[in-house]
């Protein structure tokens, strides 16, 4: 399984580089840096430098598994719209839709949540529960999100930054949105929203967290890989979409067998190396040494 993080908070070259290196170290396969619209053009200029720096990292300095994660993370850049009304959102989308492969909009306000769910030109509604006591979603928004293929984003950072009653409130919102997702089947993506080094967590830790609050293996797989990949693939083809359901294709691409039109995106089929048993790759062969007469140590390091 691959892990896509679609929401890293981009700032400037040095901070982005430190953030990307750290995320790459802990096993993320695809990293999407999000910027404010006014910073996006500046960020695009140093994208190639970031990729060069990332590809020059020594593989042995990372915690990546050589068998499964044998390549460094891919990198892309997107736009995150904050604190805008519906008019401003429309203007930003008109300006940046063709330049960026990923546009998300911060939710929280009910009008914005509704406006974003109804707009098929936006990819993601980010954190609809932001600064709210409820989840910010209902059955109407869920149906609209499904209809317009707008993904809803849940951020792990909200768990890190909130404590006690507030953290419980966020987890409750996650569970409510998950309930809507199970009924209405809108795309649900899981991200970290990391801004500094201390926000980055390993992929397995975050997957275990979402599992602990009630997500199934399939939902975690879809949230980290299937839906993000679908968004990326869809946006690569977006220029050729004339209207919904109609795509312009070159004569070279057209075949009678439709072989070339099939996507390589795999649906969840109980992938190996993902269940609890997948810990085997971390647990060493002598994990059961205690059953066959291995050595013991007490708290003081003395052998028993």
């Amino acid at each position: 399984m691959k892990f896509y993080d679609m929401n890293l908070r981009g700032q400037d070259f040095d901070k982005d580089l430190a953030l990307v290196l750290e995320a790459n170290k802990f096993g993320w396969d695809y990293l999407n840096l999000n910027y404010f619209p006014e910073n996006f053009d500046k960020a695009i200029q140093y994208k190639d430098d970031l990729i060069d720096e990332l590809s020059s990292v020594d593989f042995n300095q990372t915690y990546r598994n050589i068998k499964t994660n044998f390549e460094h993370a891919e990198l892309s850049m997107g736009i995150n719209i904050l604190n805008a009304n519906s008019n401003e959102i429309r203007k930003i989308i008109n300006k940046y839709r063709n330049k960026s492969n990923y546009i998300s909009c911060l939710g929280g306000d009910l009008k914005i949540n509704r406006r974003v769910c109804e707009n098929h030109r936006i990819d993601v509604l980010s954190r609809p529960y932001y600064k709210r006591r409820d989840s910010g979603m209902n059955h109407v928004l869920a149906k609209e999100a499904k209809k317009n293929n707008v993904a809803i984003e849940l951020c792990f950072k909200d768990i890190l930054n909130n404590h006690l009653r507030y953290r419980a409130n966020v987890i409750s919102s996650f569970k409510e949105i998950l309930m809507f997702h199970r009924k209405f089947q809108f795309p649900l993506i899981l991200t970290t929203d990391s801004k500094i080094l201390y926000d980055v967590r390993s992929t397995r830790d975050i997957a275990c967290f979402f599992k602990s609050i009630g997500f199934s293996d399939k939902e975690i797989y879809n949230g980290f890989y299937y839906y993000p990949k679908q968004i990326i693939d869809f946006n690569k083809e977006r220029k050729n979409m004339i209207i919904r359901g109609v795509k312009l294709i070159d004569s070279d691409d057209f075949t009678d067998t439709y072989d070339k039109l099939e996507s390589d995106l795999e649906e969840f089929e109980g992938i190996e190396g993902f269940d609890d048993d997948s810990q085997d790759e971390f647990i060493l062969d002598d994990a059961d040494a205690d059953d066959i007469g291995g050595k013991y140590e007490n708290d003081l390091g003395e052998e028993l």
Partner: protein
Amino acid sequence: MKLKVLPPTLRKKHHYLILDIKSEVEISKEEMLQYTGDACIRYWGENHSSNFDLWVMRHYLIDKTIQNNEAIFNYKTVLRCGRSYCNDVRVALSTLRRYNKNKVAINTIGISGTIKSGVSKFIEE
């Protein structure tokens, strides 16, 4: 008088988590135990945390770097936990971000059945 050591079948079964820790300030082995215990009790509550059987076995300072005029201490630690509660412990540790107003990040980089093999595979390499 010391208690007699339990026979192997009656002893608790353990696994060892290998942790990668980044912190703004220096962390001693005793403080590390507080960090982990506090994170587990805060996330899972007192009842469930009682199963974890946490203890810090090894604690190494790997390096100290400076980024943006801020020191970052990098440690690697071997943490003992109950055999069927590894995932619960790693979840609790990953939700810890601040302790005593200092930023800290704890990631689990591996699980091992013995201390020796965990150290040789994840720390000494």
